[in-house]
């Protein structure tokens, strides 16, 4: 693809290094002008439009499709069905690794969930394909749908999340609870939620012989490439995927899903390029969601308010045909210093698309329950919720006993509480009112998310003109990778950011790993850092080994790279530019590769997590039960902050999602049919601007020498944790009503006057 013209706005004044600067996003002007090309903006010559027909039942079998009627419709080119489709090279039911999910690609007439794709209509226009899909008029053999957390017999899944054991024990929980002076035993419910990225899943696929070209938003270019290669039986080098911009992913674009595969199959079937874009309601099924949970927390505390035991059990659901289990109870592993902790999960199978990672999977659902329960326990002990949390502050990771690689949570509590004015809080609920008579409540929650690292590689080069190149197949989901990773790249090669051609977003670049787990900046950043160091080392070799260079004899360790020059460390007046070194050596460029990866030794020794503290104020109408969040303060410690401006936006987004979790978001499933009744952005409520209060984010300084070379922990997901609980706790503090089913609804607050 053509090199992106990322602008250099005048605001990009640089003082010192690039890392740490609050640069505005370099792709911002492209996006504002509508020049950022998202997948569905591509229209290769001869392209056809594909529209999926999806099942309106949640369980059963398709018994007939009126393919002839669809084909007769003007403009319809072909209809792909289970009996008329290109063959795949492997059975899509086979899981070749844990990151492969079973997908629905017309392999049979079985219907597993509502919105299961049952046919694809391919036409000259979107309108013709849409009407063709309607004309299929499917008939079904309907079986009773399995719906909800009590749909069937529960079982203990082999693992939850990605490879976590379903149960964890540390100490004797029953003894701890039995010895407690105060006990809490409470059940919390969270609903199914859908990622609802602004940009729907889309694909434009073109075959040229056995070569495949794909425009598709993905959070995992190389994983998608590998999956496509496997499904279609072609080698990696035959596939080119472009994903320069994503309109949000939140986990739903992490894995290759059925609909994108259907787009590639459709292009193969008709021998022309095909575009397939999901309708909003079609995103409620085949592309993942956050599973509902029912969580029981039993907590004990002694007379001083110290935890004696913590038992966190989570029930969740998975699909009838694949396994993903929301690891909600695992949220209790790291935060509070209970001497005995048990976490456990069980699940039932329901007729749903397979659940998936959704922003802070496990942490978000678990956090709202845990933070609510901790709040309930603080109240039971008659202790301020912040004081209670400090009393039970974990100096080592409770579930493992490992020290933390760094943990500035105390500073988060202090700075957040000071900014919020927490000290003025009444201990009792329903004590505070504003001038208009509205109930006022203050609540808090602790935020946490693991500092993860995946595998990545980057390629760096210094060119004859002294400029740099950094290539990595990284993903910008809107979080700002085009900017933050370019900042890391610029420092890595000792150049100003505008002197480095930063290339990302395509599958022909080195593997950046998945943009997930809040680990992308850390992982890709580490690879970039290491590639930069390697190319500078090569350049230094050229210079220090050449007697014509002022750096001759300085040795690698004695040279530093800055502003496009290598300088002697012990005498910075002696140095020369990259261009001079390459010119003398007669080279067009030097290049090197570097990798980023987790450090198993450090992981063995340390628990690695980002932390934070979120404080929320709500107002509640005492008669009408309507809730409004009026203030939120979040203080987060997440290691090194590469770009404070973008990090703040990430944390704002997470906090808003936490507010949404507590008060708005819920997919409403018809209990009889398993159909989702609010599969649109009008009725699936997320906060609008008018629901979002002034947000205040503090990034607390934290140096972590262990997580990775750059000390980055990641900020993508932590903002939602803590925030949801803080809002829920504030509602309790305002009203005295403890709502344990989320989102909190008006009717639950109507009980009092």
């Amino acid at each position: 693809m053509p090199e992106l013209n990322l602008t250099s706005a005048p605001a990009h004044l640089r003082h010192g290094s690039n890392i740490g600067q609050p640069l505005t996003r370099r792709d911002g002007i492209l996006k504002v002008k509508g020049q950022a090309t998202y997948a569905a903006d591509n229209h290769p010559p001869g392209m056809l439009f594909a529209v999926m027909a999806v099942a309106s039942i949640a369980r059963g079998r398709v018994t007939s499709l009126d393919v002839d009627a669809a084909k007769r419709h003007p403009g319809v080119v072909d209809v792909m069905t289970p009996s008329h489709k290109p063959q795949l090279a492997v059975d899509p039911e086979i899981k070749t690794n844990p990151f492969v999910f079973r997908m629905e690609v017309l392999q049979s007439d079985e219907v597993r969930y509502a919105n299961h794709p049952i046919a694809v209509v391919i036409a000259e226009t979107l309108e013709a394909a849409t009407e063709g899909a309607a004309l299929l008029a499917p008939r079904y053999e309907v079986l009773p749908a399995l719906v909800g957390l009590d749909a069937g017999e529960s079982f203990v899944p082999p693992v939850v999340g990605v490879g976590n054991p379903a149960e964890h024990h540390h100490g004797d929980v029953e003894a701890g609870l039995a010895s407690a002076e105060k006990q809490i035993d409470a059940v919390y419910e969270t609903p199914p939620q859908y990622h609802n990225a602004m940009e729907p899943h889309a694909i434009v696929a073109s075959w040229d012989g056995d070569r495949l070209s794909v425009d598709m938003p993905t959070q995992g270019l190389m994983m998608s490439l590998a999956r496509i290669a496997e499904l279609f039986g072609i080698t990696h080098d035959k596939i080119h995927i472009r994903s320069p911009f994503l309109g949000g992913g939140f986990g739903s674009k992490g894995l290759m899903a059925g609909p994108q595969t259907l787009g590639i199959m459709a292009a193969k079937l008709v021998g022309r390029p095909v575009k397939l874009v999901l309708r909003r309601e079609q995103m409620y099924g085949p592309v993942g969601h956050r599973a509902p949970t029912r969580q029981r927390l039993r907590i004990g505390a002694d007379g001083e308010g110290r935890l004696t035991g913590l038992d966190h059990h989570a029930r969740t659901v998975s699909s009838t045909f694949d396994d993903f289990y929301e690891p909600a109870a695992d949220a209790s592993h790291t935060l509070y210093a209970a001497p005995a902790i048990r976490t456990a999960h069980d699940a039932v199978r329901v007729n749903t698309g397979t659940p998936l990672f959704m922003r802070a999977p496990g942490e978000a659902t678990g956090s709202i329950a845990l933070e609510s329960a901790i709040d309930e326990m603080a109240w039971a002990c008659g202790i301020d919720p912040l004081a209670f949390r400090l009393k039970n502050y974990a100096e080592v990771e409770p579930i493992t006993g490992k020290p933390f690689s760094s943990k500035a949570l105390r500073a988060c509590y202090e700075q957040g509480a000071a900014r919020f004015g927490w000290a003025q809080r009444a201990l009792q609920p329903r004590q505070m009112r504003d001038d208009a008579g509205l109930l006022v409540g203050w609540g808090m929650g602790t935020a946490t998310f693991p500092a993860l690292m995946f595998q990545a590689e980057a390629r760096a080069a210094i060119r004859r003109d002294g400029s740099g190149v950094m290539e990595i197949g990284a993903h910008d989901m809107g979080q700002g990778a085009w900017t933050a990773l370019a900042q890391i790249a610029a420092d890595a090669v000792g150049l100003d950011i505008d002197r480095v051609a930063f290339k990302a977003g395509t599958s022909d670049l080195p593997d950046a790993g998945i943009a997930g787990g809040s680990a992308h900046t850390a992982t890709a950043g580490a690879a970039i850092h290491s590639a930069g160091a390697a190319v500078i080392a090569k350049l230094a070799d050229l210079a220090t080994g050449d007697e014509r260079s002022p750096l001759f004899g300085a040795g690698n360790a004695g040279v530093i790279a800055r502003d496009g020059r290598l300088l002697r460390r012990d005498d910075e007046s002696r140095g020369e530019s990259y261009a001079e070194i390459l010119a003398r050596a007669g080279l067009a460029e030097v290049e090197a590769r570097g990798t980023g990866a987790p450090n198993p030794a450090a992981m063995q020794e340390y628990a690695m997590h980002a932390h934070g503290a979120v404080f929320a104020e709500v107002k509640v109408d005492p008669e009408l039960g309507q809730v409004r969040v009026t203030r939120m303060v979040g203080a987060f410690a997440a290691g090194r902050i590469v770009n404070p401006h973008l990090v703040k936006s990430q944390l704002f987004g997470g906090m808003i999602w936490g507010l949404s979790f507590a008060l708005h978001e819920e997919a409403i499933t018809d209990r009889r049919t398993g159909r989702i009744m609010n599969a649109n952005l009008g009725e699936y409520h997320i906060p609008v601007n008018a629901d979002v209060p002034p947000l205040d984010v503090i990034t607390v300084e934290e140096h972590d020498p262990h997580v990775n070379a750059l000390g980055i922990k990641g900020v993508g997901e932590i903002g939602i944790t803590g925030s949801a609980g803080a809002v829920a706790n504030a509602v309790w503090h305002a009203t005295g009503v403890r709502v344990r089913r989320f989102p909190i609804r008006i009717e639950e607050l109507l009980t009092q006057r």
Partner: protein
Amino acid sequence: MKPFDYVRPGTVAEAVAAAAQPGAVYLAAGTNLLDLMKGGVSRPDRLVDVTHLDGLDQIEHLADGSVRIGALVSNADLAHDADFARSYPAVAEALLSGASAQLRNAATVGGNLLQRTRCAYFYDTASRCNKREAGSGCDAREGENRSHAVLGWSDSCIATHPSDFCVPLVALDAIVEIEGRNGRREIPLDALHRLPGDAPERESALEPGDLIVAVRLPPAARGFAAHARYLKVRERTSYAFAVVSAAAALRIENGKIREARLALGGVAAKPWRARSAEDVLGNVAPTADAFQEAALRALTDAKPSGDNAFKIELARRIVVRALTLAAAGTPARLPALPASPFASIPGAIHA
């Protein structure tokens, strides 16, 4: 998408003739209709685009003291018309509490009156719905029906009318001017929408070809300007339909209510005029007790149609609050968060 004819008549008479054909529907802004068509809920054969008809986009203040609002006036233009908002503040507040700014810029007065229910089972073509397909059954009745009707519903249909705008209009005795095959006629807005009974597919008193050309507020409607509010409880502050809403308008003289108007939204298949509540408010002081009594009266006939018993108690409380706010006096400016219980949060940006 199903192919359809598109006609753009030059006159009202041509429009009426074009729309009188079976399968024809009017298209104004299309903020509801186009969604219905995309979802396969509505599959018309012919769209009669009325947006180019002359003379339907005026707000006229008539000599007798009434105001006549052309059917093509946008929701936003009407709400932001200073004279109109001053004279009919509850109507302006209701308009600004509806939909989103983008939708209000497009949506028309006539279209607002005729918007369809937001019952999820009506929109979901895989579900049975007597409104969408007469006699097919009602899947909402035993379904997810927390937001459904508590007044005037039947076993055939428990859907609600979603309009905010219509609620104060019906309280103020708005009149609908209709052009039809037999010429012009007018009916009270209260008679435009029908309760479901056993024919929920018939939603209004309109006949094929009937075109709403204007809505008129009679001279007496101005008399409530000093004490008129709209209050809407909803699940987020904007772009959400009412769980329950109420329009309250009072004419207060010498410390006594001379005349009260009250209507509820989100509770029935039509904007619900609560006349029995109005009756108990005539010639009484605007006290909490009087408002409580009115609230009880307004909901006397209410009964849950599903998981929505809370709406009855909520409606009572909203009636009391709306009357209390109205008695306190119309604010000089439309509130920053129109119709919200949090209308006057300091620092909020005015609508």
